[in-house]
């Protein structure tokens, strides 16, 4: 098991830059998520760690050893492909034992090892079946079996649940997480699904346009977004952005927006011009005393909560409130925000303004 350190990693395909100077550390035993929209460079990063692509520049350390230019067979890293890539001309047993055969392991040991892995994954009964007729979930398990059978230093997973049906994904996600907790293996997992990332990951790297936007625990990423992109990408519905023209002062614990003053976490920097007031829907409260007046446009009932769409002079926003609260479409109400959860952004750069809330986090952006 191993720690993986990525330093200034860069990958160009001709004129196109897939990954731009990324740096982050994956600690030993971590379930690490590479999250981002498609084309953001997350899969390229994963493939560089595994050795399927060679970086244009930068270093990758696996347990302190620089491996960025080594062939994949020398790295001792397992890879689970999105389409599983099970060898179609071999049965399940041969697929799982294939990495061991390459190491020249004696036949008897291979057999024991395969049986052990099949036991862990609950696939003993399909070992002698061809892989062609297997269900998606079983293919997934065989692909996992092929990965874990040789106790690699780390696992790379490229959207392994992407090819499964929705109902099956949930179950496999749980199985995967349970498997990880049992083996405690460093795992790097690529996904574009923010829910999956939040649900399974110990740490998340959010990438966009070849750049690492933020790196941290799911809670950090959700509560203390470093950029507007992260704030928008994570959470459903995503963070409300209220655009305004004004100024923020270092040391102040409030900001003035369109004539009213709102409490915010104590600011650590000055800013003025186009600013954005960011607030998560669940931190918007309907209150008659609220400084911001808004008209109710719609309400979606979700069982325990409801999502209310509101229109205010500072822009449209959504609020997640208790479903018992009765709200009529068309009425005007006042809005209040939980001051300690507010993040202010510079609209031009998209970066969060440093404050008491996000100190220590923004530095990664």
């Amino acid at each position, binding site marked *: 098991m191993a720690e993986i350190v990525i330093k200034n990693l860069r990958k160009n395909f001709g004129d196109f830059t897939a990954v731009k100077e990324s740096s982050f550390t994956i600690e030993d035993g971590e379930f690490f998520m590479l999250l981002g929209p498609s084309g953001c460079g997350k899969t390229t990063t994963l493939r560089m760690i595994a050795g399927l692509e060679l970086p244009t520049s930068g270093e990758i350390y696996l347990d302190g050893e620089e491996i960025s230019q080594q*062939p994949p*067979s020398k790295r001792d890293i397992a*890879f689970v492909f999105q389409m599983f890539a*099970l*060898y179609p*001309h071999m049965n399940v047993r041969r697929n799982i034992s*294939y990495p061991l055969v390459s190491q020249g392991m004696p036949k008897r040991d291979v057999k024991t090892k395969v049986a052990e892995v099949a036991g862990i994954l609950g696939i003993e009964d399909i070992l002698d079946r061809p892989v062609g007729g297997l269900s998606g979930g079983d293919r997934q398990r065989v692909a996992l079996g*092929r990965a874990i059978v040789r106790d690699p230093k780390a696992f790379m997973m490229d959207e392994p649940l992407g090819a499964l049906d929705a109902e099956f994904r949930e179950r496999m996600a749980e199985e995967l997480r349970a498997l990880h907790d049992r083996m405690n293996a460093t795992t790097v997992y690529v996904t574009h699904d923010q829910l999956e990332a939040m649900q399974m990951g110990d740490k998340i790297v959010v990438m966009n346009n070849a750049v690492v936007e933020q790196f941290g625990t799911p809670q950090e990423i959700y509560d203390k977004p470093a950029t507007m992109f992260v704030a928008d990408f994570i959470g459903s519905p995503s963070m409300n952005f209220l655009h305004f023209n004004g100024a923020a002062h270092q040391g102040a614990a409030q900001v003035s927006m369109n004539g009213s003053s709102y409490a915010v976490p104590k600011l650590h920097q000055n800013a003025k011009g186009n600013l954005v007031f960011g607030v998560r829907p669940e931190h918007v409260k309907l209150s008659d005393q609220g400084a911001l007046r808004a008209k109710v446009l719609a309400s979606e009932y979700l069982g325990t909560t409801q999502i209310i769409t509101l229109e205010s002079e500072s822009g449209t926003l959504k609020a997640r409130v208790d479903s018992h609260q009765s709200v009529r479409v068309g009425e005007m109400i006042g809005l209040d925000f939980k001051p300690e959860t507010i993040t202010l952004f510079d609209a031009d750069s998209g970066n969060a303004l440093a404050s008491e809330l996000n100190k220590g986090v923004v530095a990664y952006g």
Partner: protein
Amino acid sequence: MTYSVTEPTKRQKWFAGTLVILYAIITILPLAWIMMTGFKTPPDSISYPPKVYFEPSLEGYVNLFTTRTRVSQETLENLPPPQNFAEEIVRNRGMVIAGPSKFGQRFLNSVIIGFGSTFLSIFLGTLAAYAFSRFKIPLADDLLFFILSTRMMPPIAVAIPIFLMYRKLGLSDTHLGMILLYTGVNISLAVWLLKGFIDEIPREYEEAALIDGYTRFQAFYKIVLPQAATGIASTAIFCLIFAWNEYAFAVLLTSGTAQTAPPFIPTIIGVGGLDWPAVAAGATIFLLPVMIFTILLRKHLLRGITFGAVRK
């Protein structure tokens, strides 16, 4: 009656079946005629109207494999009784067997040259197709076009330069010369067909093998080759059929040691009159290897020619 969109109706099935049978009859008829003629006696083979029912005889096959000399009636009577059926057949025509014909050796030449060039085309073609499919090759498209362009004229158009070149190089009438020539003609077909097949094999399989600890070359022959078996088999059949049936170059460049069966079979006609049964027997035997080869690989061939038509 239930109606189904995908399942053809009884009448449609019947119609399709009739068409297939008609087509089969049309294509099989000439082959059947050749095979039948091989078992006729020379008079039967040229009788008019043609005989459909006849007494089968092995005379064509005996004539194909032997050379014979005509002898006088006296000599014939003074000979010891015939040792085998072949001698008996020949003596009934007033002749004796002088020795074996060259057919066996010519047939062997066809086998060596046909299978040799097929093997070489597939071997080189697979490697080239893999490289074109997987690696970034400068000017890859132009190279592929160049390879294909060698098939844009009939090969016989360059017969004279090749004839002169082969004479200079000492390749005329050699097995190596013919193998190289047929490989040269077939390789463009092999590269293009195989590239299509290899393109369809997802790269993930090789990448999985690389991750599993195999080298690039091991990944190629342990993972890619078995996956490409269908393509290789059907390409091999096409290459073999060309090399096996090729006539023009064979006539031009071979006359003795390396002569293949196609230019040899017509020469039988000249020996002792129009010996159609012997020609037909030669054609029948000549058909067999390709037929056997195709039957052995027919599963692959069927999958091969419909390959890419439907995405799995």
